[in-house]
């Protein structure tokens, strides 16, 4: 990295002056604690005993047979406490916030998974938490709103802009800039000003490290390809990062293709460079630089920006970014449910859909690992509505 906090030209710290000292303090604290043995062992203990790590790398035999191509493995982040990979990050940042002496945690959430994971980590660590969520997401992810409330979190609906994740982040940033003395902003993805993209990536990299270890011990080699979905991009960044230098491993990030070219949340596929939420990155925007109205059936992918490191990995062509439509994702949801008895989150179903396609084009002695970032319980109503099922 030529400049601190930059991935090529992307990243940076595009925040109001008021926040600059706060993110510099965060950067110092993170550097200090990530090298601290006590912090590391405490976090490892929480990941193991509270969150349920390591998660299995499961051989999806039925899907593999159906695909008649490469072996398909599922990295089961959906089995974690809370039902998604988000807890890897909220425990890490929650513990950091506590060490920094912060008492109040704020977070944004799209699908609600990060909000739930924040609520859980904060309850476990004895911290207060409040979560911002767009009103459209509140409506389509009611179950998670209810879960957050039960876990003792205050949920603030955000009725501004597109009423989704990006507006929840705007509001969380405004809260932070107003209350920064006692408040820690726990961002849920590899987005925002430096050091968040690095910090969240580091906390999520446990996914890729486990995949490496597990595939070497069971197959004697790394997978030939890795597939993960990209909204903000935290589960994919965590999956890819430990493999970036392994040139033999092909990496695929799957974006939300929505219903087509004019109605999607595929930032890297259709966006251009912009600055939002404190970072320079690819951005879905109109010709005047207003952020686009995004769409995805998966609330967790419905975001016009993307982590700056992904923008860099796209430009240097280390990762291939592809799209999967709403319809393909829903189909993959049903396929995984019927073939393997697993209900994936609609976000993760995007990765599953692409992995199935990819595996079919590969040889039987090759393998694909796909990160199942979350479970699909939260989406059964949406799926039910689309398939005409009465719940």
């Amino acid at each position: 990295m030529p400049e601190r906090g930059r991935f090529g030209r992307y990243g940076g710290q595009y925040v109001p002056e008021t926040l600059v000292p706060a993110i510099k303090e965060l950067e110092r604290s993170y550097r200090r604690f990530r090298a601290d043995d006590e912090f590391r062992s405490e976090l490892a203990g929480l990941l193991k005993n509270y969150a349920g790590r390591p998660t299995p790398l499961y051989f999806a035999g039925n899907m593999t047979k159906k695909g008649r191509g490469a072996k398909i493995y599922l990295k089961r982040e959906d089995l974690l406490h809370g039902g998604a990979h988000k807890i890897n990050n909220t425990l890490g940042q929650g513990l950091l916030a506590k060490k920094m002496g912060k008492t109040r945690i704020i977070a944004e959430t799209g699908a609600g998974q990060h909000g739930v994971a924040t609520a859980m980590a904060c309850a476990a660590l004895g911290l207060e938490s409040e979560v911002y969520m767009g009103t459209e997401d509140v409506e389509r992810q009611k179950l998670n709103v209810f879960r957050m409330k039960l876990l003792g979190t205050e949920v603030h609906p955000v009725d501004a802009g597109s009423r989704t994740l990006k507006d929840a982040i705007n509001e969380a940033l405004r809260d932070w800039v107003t209350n920064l003395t006692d408040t820690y902003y726990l961002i849920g993805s590899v987005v925002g000003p430096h050091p968040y993209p690095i910090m969240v990536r580091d906390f999520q990299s446990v996914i890729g490290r486990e995949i490496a270890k597990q595939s070497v011990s069971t197959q004697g080699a790394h997978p030939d390809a890795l597939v993960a979905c990209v909204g903000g991009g935290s589960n994919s960044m965590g999956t890819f990062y430990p493999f970036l230098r392994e040139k033999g491993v092909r990496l695929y990030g799957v974006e939300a293709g929505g219903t087509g070219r004019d109605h999607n949340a595929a930032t890297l596929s259709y966006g251009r460079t912009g600055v939002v939420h404190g970072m320079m990155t690819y951005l879905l925007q109109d010709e005047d630089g207003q952020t686009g109205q995004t769409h995805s059936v998966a609330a967790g992918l419905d975001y016009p920006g993307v982590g700056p490191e992904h923008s860099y990995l796209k430009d240097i062509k280390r990762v291939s970014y592809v799209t999967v439509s709403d319809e393909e994702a829903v189909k993959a949801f049903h396929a995984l449910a019927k073939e393997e008895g697993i209900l994936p989150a609609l976000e993760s179903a995007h990765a599953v859909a692409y992995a199935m396609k990819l595996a079919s084009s590969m040889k039987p002695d090759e393998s694909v690992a796909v990160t199942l970032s979350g479970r699909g319980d939260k989406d059964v109503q949406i799926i039910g509505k689309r398939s005409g099922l009465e719940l």
Partner: protein
Amino acid sequence: MGGDPDPQASVDVAEAVLKGGADIIELGIPFSDPIADGRAVQAAGVRALRSGTKPADVLRIATEVKKARDVPVVVMTYFNPILSRGASAFLDAARRSGVDGVIVPDLPLDEARKFGSAARARGIDSVLLAAPTTGEERMKKIVANTSGFLYLVSVIGVTGAREQLKDSTIRLVKFAKRFTQGKVPLAVGFGISRPEHVRTVIGAGADAAIVGSAIVDRVAAIEGGEDEALGRIEAYVRSLKHATMSP
């Protein structure tokens, strides 16, 4: 906010503000994600975007305002609308429109260097902000790198009219004045809405007070009847201007 509720109304509002005695006009270019702004400016941005206002329209408003009266016009917007057009192209257009300065709240010192020199090379001031959280060393650097004036954010928080000034604001103004004295004018903004606020910050050493949300709130009332609302805005600004002269 340029284009709130529509571009022509913005020109009228600017004229009312000038008649009331304002010395500099700050004109906003609306952005979809204004993270430094509170409710009032957010709502103004929504109204402006809804009326179809584009960055180029706001630059045209600047030209109109300057035509009516030769006062400095400073444009405030976030970095993305600038970057979207290309910083150089944006600054060229701003210069052609007669814009005297640019304030970009999400472009702090370290990110503003390149943009700042590109602006100054065109004779446009790049105004930096300092905040209550800014320490002594950083304050020195910000003062050395700002041009036109220093925009001192009076409180920890977002923009928006507040009922009372905090005691800490007076200390903050005095602190900042130590660095700006003899170098660059000191203007204080965020939360200032009453004549007594203006009197206090000027009394503490500020060279100017910046009032945004309180005017935007009055613009929001225009819908009822434009002339009446403009008259109220003019009278309001006059009361603020008087406060600068009677410490």
